[in-house]
């Protein structure tokens, strides 16, 4: 699925950088009914993980109270050049990944 990742392409060693992620997902709460009264089953992303060169630096448990198309912004210290990997896991076997590279000088 489509994901938007915003990571600075370059950073100085030791800088604190902001990472922003947005992914497209309906985040159906499981509390809504259709007009004829049937419950719409829950379909949400339950977990998000960010790894920096293989090491987990940020993780989130998401609940139905997270808005559709989950947006997350968090920080990390730029330690070394490499790759940031993002993973979203959800209901009904949902899984999505994205990555971004960063050059640390």
């Amino acid at each position, binding site marked *: 699925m489509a994901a938007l990742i915003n990571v600075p392409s370059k950073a100085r060693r030791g800088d604190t950088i902001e990472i922003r992620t947005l992914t497209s997902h309906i985040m159906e709460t499981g509390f809504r009914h259709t007009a004829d009264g049937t419950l719409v089953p829950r379909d949400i992303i339950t977990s998000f993980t960010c790894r920096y060169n293989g*090491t987990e630096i*940020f993780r989130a448990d998401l609940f139905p*109270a997270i808005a559709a198309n989950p947006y997350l*912004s968090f*920080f*990390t210290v730029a330690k070394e050049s490499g790759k940031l990997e993002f993973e979203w896991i959800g209901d009904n076997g949902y899984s999505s990944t994205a990555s971004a590279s960063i050059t640390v000088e």
Partner: protein
Amino acid sequence: MPTTRRQFLSLAGSVTVAGTIPIVTLRPLEATPAMLNPAIRNVVGEAQIRTGKVKLDIPPLVENGNTVPMTVSVASPMTANDYVKSIHIFNEKNPQPNIGNFYLGPSSGRAQVSTRIRLADTQKVVAIARLSDDTFWQVAADIVVTLAACTEEMN
């Protein structure tokens, strides 16, 4: 002397301002609805929760509860010995009390997380941070919601 239009408007304006102030002020923590406390205890256990250190940036009045921007930050040096382990967000009146759990570490650099949340009603949102010494700190904010999220009918 008859009231001029200018006097009337300034009086009406000040009444409106006075009327909205209680909405935007942070009220001290009070007894919370049934589901909130067990949800918090589920995360915190028996530990004492202190007020402070945590900052919750959220609009005091939102028109649409379907997407409410929210930023939580914790005053912490984020060093190897003193950092924020996790941040937990709860609500009072959605069908479910949890909003999100965020796990950080000393390599986070800054203890700040932003996301967008849903609010089903005018209610209180509570943010709790767990520090590396396993103390818990919290803050609460009241939000007025005019259009509710979560439970509306699907079209």
